[in-house]
């Protein structure tokens, strides 16, 4: 959890921040979804409440808060109330593990909050834009995301409703089987990058050096305009990963569990009010994690495409004078802070881009039947993922990529 008091507190604060980011982002996404779906259906979507309907988010939140919490008569209280909480945990933990920006270094100084509250003297500290740096990040992320199935099961069982139980079982079966495909598809790219830690992966996708393939000794460098991203090393893995992530989050093409006529809302039929909202948060959390992973592995993470990391750092320091006017007490770390901010913005843009695709796909593709769903999962995704792993292994062996 950290070597000393400062680090522990900082870690806790970061966890809270990330959790809040996840929670706050959800209304935006809901709004975005309603707008985009409306746009795609050639209608307007919420635009009455505030400019472009942005206040609609607040209205929804208030509505959910004041809904009457209702508990099914023979339901199991622990399960019923535990399920929504369980839905939030995996999303938050997974997001904490993904680096959202470059770490920046704080010199040794005595800090004071907002310039006047003394926080005491503290040694140099590398502030990483990440919840906590697990060494083997991806394994932890996969592990945590597999816990998602429990919230469904608890919800299904707790609401003691036969149909919600059926929905829950189907959903968890789907999650478990697609988790397999998810994990295996990543193996390919991990072999290429030869590491589990997110920082190394992103570092290897540094736009400074162009995309290079060496094939039996001869090195082919791609034209400058193709960024040095992971997707070009392992396109098939990216495709499988993206599709599997749809299934993981029960997003549309795979949202069968709550789609049947009699299953209505699947495992969260008996929930209303804020509990239902928590399930949405959980779902969107998973989506964010999936898109964050997508970005980190295949689209260069927080790097800005055509601009190398050092270029950004120099640019910021040049503009430093111009911004000098706001002489904040920690100005000495100012440059590092701003550069990591830039990277954070690029990461955010990428994540939003993928979320857009999630939403976009939701309103285009029809739903799978359950057996098609399962067949796809076991009989196509899994074999292809294995094939991809073997392919990359062979390709790596041939291309003698320096290990």
């Amino acid at each position, binding site marked *: *959890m*950290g*070597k000393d008091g400062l680090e*522990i507190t900082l870690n806790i604060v970061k966890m809270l921040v990330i959790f809040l980011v996840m929670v706050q982002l959800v209304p935006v996404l809901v709004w975005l979804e309603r707008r985009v779906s409306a746009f795609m259906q050639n209608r307007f979507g919420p635009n009455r409440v505030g400019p472009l309907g942005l206040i609609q988010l607040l209205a929804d939140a208030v509505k959910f808060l004041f809904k009457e919490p209702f508990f099914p008569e023979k339901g*199991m209280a*622990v*399960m019923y109330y*535990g399920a929504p909480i369980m839905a939030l945990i995996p999303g938050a933990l997974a997001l904490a593990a993904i680096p959202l920006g470059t770490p920046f270094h704080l010199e040794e100084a005595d800090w004071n909050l907002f310039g006047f509250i003394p926080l005491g003297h503290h040694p140099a500290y590398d502030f990483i834009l990440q919840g906590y*740096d*697990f*060494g*083997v990040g991806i*394994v*932890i992320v*996969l*592990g*945590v995301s*597999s*816990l998602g*199935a*429990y919230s469904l*099961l*608890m919800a*299904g*069982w707790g609401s003691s409703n036969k149909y919600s*139980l059926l929905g*829950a*079982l189907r959903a*968890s*079966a789907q999650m*478990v089987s697609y*988790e397999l495909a998810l*994990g295996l598809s990543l193996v390919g790219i991990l072999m290429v990058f030869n*590491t*589990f*830690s997110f*920082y190394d992966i992103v570092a290897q996708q540094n736009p400074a050096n162009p995309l290079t393939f060496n094939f039996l000794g001869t090195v082919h460098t791609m034209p400058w305009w193709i960024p040095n991203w992971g997707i070009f090393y392992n396109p098939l893995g990216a495709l499988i990963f993206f599709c599997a992530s749809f299934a993981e989050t029960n997003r549309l093409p795979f949202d069968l569990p709550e789609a049947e006529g009699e299953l209505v809302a699947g495992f969260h039929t008996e929930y209303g009010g804020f509990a239902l909202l928590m399930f949405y948060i959980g779902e969107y959390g998973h989506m964010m994690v999936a898109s964050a992973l997508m970005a980190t592995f295949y689209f260069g993470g927080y790097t800005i495409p055509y601009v190398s990391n050092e270029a950004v750092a120099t640019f910021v320091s040049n503009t430093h004078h111009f911004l000098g006017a706001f002489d904040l007490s920690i100005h000495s770390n100012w440059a590092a802070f701003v550069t990591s901010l830039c990277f954070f913005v690029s990461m955010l843009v990428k994540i939003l881009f993928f979320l857009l695709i999630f939403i976009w796909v939701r309103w285009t593709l029809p739903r799978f039947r359950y057996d098609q769903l399962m067949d796809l999962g076991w009989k196509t995704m899994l074999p292809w993922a294995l094939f991809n792993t073997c392919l990359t292994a062979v390709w790596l062996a041939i291309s003698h990529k320096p290990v």
Partner: protein
Amino acid sequence: MLSSQDFLFYFLGALSLIFGLGVVLYRNPIYSALCLVITMISVAGIFATLDAWFIAGVQLIVYAGAVTVLFVMVLMLFDLKHEMKTFSKGVIGNGVKLASSGVLLGMFSTYIWATYATEPTFKPMAAGATSSIKATKDLATSLFTSYLFAFEVIGLLLLVIAVGAVTLSRITGGTHHHAD
């Protein structure tokens, strides 16, 4: 004062013990299954405190994520209506069982106390992130060099188990048997 590592160990240890006992004592199997989940997660945490991050991750994926889900799903499928007695009958039997486990526990602890009375402390691991990657690399290399045969056999075993489980579950007869 306690280092974070120690605190984490005591917290997770207590967690796993309490919910471990919960697994055994809860009358309703569903609750004991959920206790098992929490125990698994806390054990994964304990692995983390022992700087075995990859194994912690695998534990989360395999145990917490798959095996216990299987348990919970099967229990839900059974949907036991009537609640049966949780513990097996026979006072003497139970007495002997308790006694033997007590003696066993006593033996374990005295043995541990006897051999490790000198407070063996762990040598500090290398700095956080990088070392866990190296540990994972070592694990992978040893798994695929010295224990390659075992790895292959385990693969084969899993195949056999899969086939076995399928055939077992396909056994017709019993309540749902419909002459087809």
